[in-house]
Structures are given as structure tokens and as C-alpha cells.
């Protein structure tokens, strides 16, 4: 791989993504500026993980001791689908018509602690999430990643990365996995 010029601020930590485990991750200080996303990490995420309706991954600083690391950011993944209407299925969508519904993974929540914002780590979280889904897609057919943006600012952030907004569902955006696979492939 060719060496690239620095693309993030120098003060951003070296990070690693791990499955959320409360015994090893400190969520108590997490504050992203959006109360529902803070509340979810502190209160609700474990119930969802127990019920297996979502899995949470956290971004932590590599230099902190592995036994208890502060959560810098997090995201959640779960399965998702776009059902096709009965009428369409019969005579349209010749190539993808055999897939009903369209299989997807939902990036349901993604948040970065305020203390770490403005250092390019939000996009590191997005790439971490897409990478995780790409790995999953080797064992479970997945055509796109869908995000539910909490507000317009979040939607614009995803749009900047190349996510496409549904015209009639402006808070939902999608990113084809094939596009991400191409983005990860070495260019030389």
C-alpha cells in the first residue's frame, strides 16, 4: 500500500472497535450531545443485546488498559429488509426480482463523544461499521447498509460520505455494499 498524507488531525487517538461489553467498557461518561443516543448506550443497549435485536460496537482508545476502556463512540447493527409490493414483484425488477425482500443491515445508531468530535473519528466509526457489515455479508447475503439519521445534520454527514437519501424517507439513507467493497480494494 502506498503511504498517504495524514488525513486526520494529529491529536486523534489510535482506536480499535470492540463488541460492547460492560465489564470492560466505561459507558458512564459518554455524552454525544444528543440525549436519546446517550440514554440508549447507558440504559437500553443491554436489553437489545440480550434479546438479540441489535449488537453494539464501541470505539475505544488503544492506549488505555484493555480491562476498562472509556467509550469514545459506538454504533449498532441489526438485520433489516425492504419488502417489495406484491404487484411489482411479478413483472418488474427482472434481476433482483428473486430477492424479496431486499436484504439489508441497519446501522441503527452511531454516536461519537463530544470530547472527541471534530477529529475525523465520526467517519472512522462509519468505515468501521461498513467493514463489519462487509465481513458479515460473506456469510449472510446483504446488499445495502441502511442508516436512520437522528436529525438533518446527521443525514448530511452520511450524504457527504456518499450515502444516498431516499426521496420519500429523508431520514433513511443507504450505501451499497459493492460500492464499499470497491472503496476498500487496493487502487494499485
Amino acid at each position, binding site marked *: 500500500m502506498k503511504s498517504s498524507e495524514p488525513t486526520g488531525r494529529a491529536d486523534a487517538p489510535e482506536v480499535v472497535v470492540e463488541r460492547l461489553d460492560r465489564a470492560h467498557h466505561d459507558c458512564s461518561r459518554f455524552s454525544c450531545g444528543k440525549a*436519546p443516543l446517550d440514554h440508549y448506550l447507558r440504559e437500553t443497549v443491554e436489553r437489545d443485546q440480550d434479546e438479540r435485536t441489535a449488537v453494539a460496537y464501541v470505539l475505544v482508545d488503544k492506549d488505555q488498559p484493555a480491562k476498562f476502556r472509556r467509550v469514545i463512540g459506538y454504533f449498532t447493527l441489526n438485520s433489516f429488509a*425492504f*419488502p417489495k409490493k406484491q404487484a411489482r414483484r411479478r413483472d418488474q425488477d427482472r434481476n433482483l426480482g428473486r430477492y424479496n425482500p431486499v436484504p439489508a443491515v441497519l446501522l441503527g445508531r452511531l454516536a461519537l463523544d463530544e470530547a472527541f468530535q471534530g477529529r475525523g473519528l465520526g*467517519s472512522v466509526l462509519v468505515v468501521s461499521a461498513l*467493514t463489519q457489515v462487509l465481513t458479515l455479508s460473506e456469510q449472510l447475503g446483504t446488499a445495502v447498509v441502511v442508516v436512520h439519521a437522528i436529525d438533518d445534520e446527521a443525514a448530511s454527514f452520511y450524504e457527504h460520505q456518499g450515502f444516498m437519501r431516499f426521496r420519500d424517507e429523508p431520514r433513511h439513507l443507504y450505501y451499497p455494499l459493492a460500492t464499499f467493497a470497491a*472503496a476498500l480494494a487496493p487502487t494499485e
Partner: protein
Amino acid sequence: MVIQSHRPKLSTERQTRTTKNRRIAFRLTDELGAQLDRAVALTGRSQTDLITEAIADKADEVIRAQRLLELTDRDMDALLAAIEHPPVPNAAMLRSIARWRERGAPA
């Protein structure tokens, strides 16, 4: 409990984001009303503030609990087209990947 809800006609899309146009009136049982009063006293926040936060949290939770999204025909067409003919990644995504590699992506 009685809930009334109406949304006045708006002149612009922008207005819906910035102005509080929707008015909701509803009745509470004495028990729930007393509970609300206690919560208001404990937090020192206004009743409207507390209820608004509760609505935002619950609406968010319900919307996010969706595991299916039925798209309009034009959105389904766009989605299928993007799957069949994936767009090339944009420069911002390539920069994000470079940053992710620098910051300690798994090899």
C-alpha cells in the same frame, strides 16, 4: 385519556423545522398527573420540557424498532438501480478509509 392533535397548514418546509406549530392537548388520570407534578418538582424543569423529551424519546424508539421499510416505487427503483449498478465511491469515503487505516484499523 383524550388527545387532540392538529397541524396547521404551513407555508414552507423550513417552517416545520424551526417553529413549534403542533399543539397537543390531552387528559391525564389524577395518578399520572400527580406523578408528573413530582417529576417536575424533582427536576426543576418545565412540564412541557419533560413531556416533549418523553415524546422525542418514545417516537425515536418506535421508529428505530422498525425492521422493515416499505419504500415508494421511485425509492425502490433507485435502491435496486444502486444495487445492480453500484456507484463508485466518492472522495470523502476514500479519505475516511485512509483515516480509518491510519487510526488503527484491523489489518
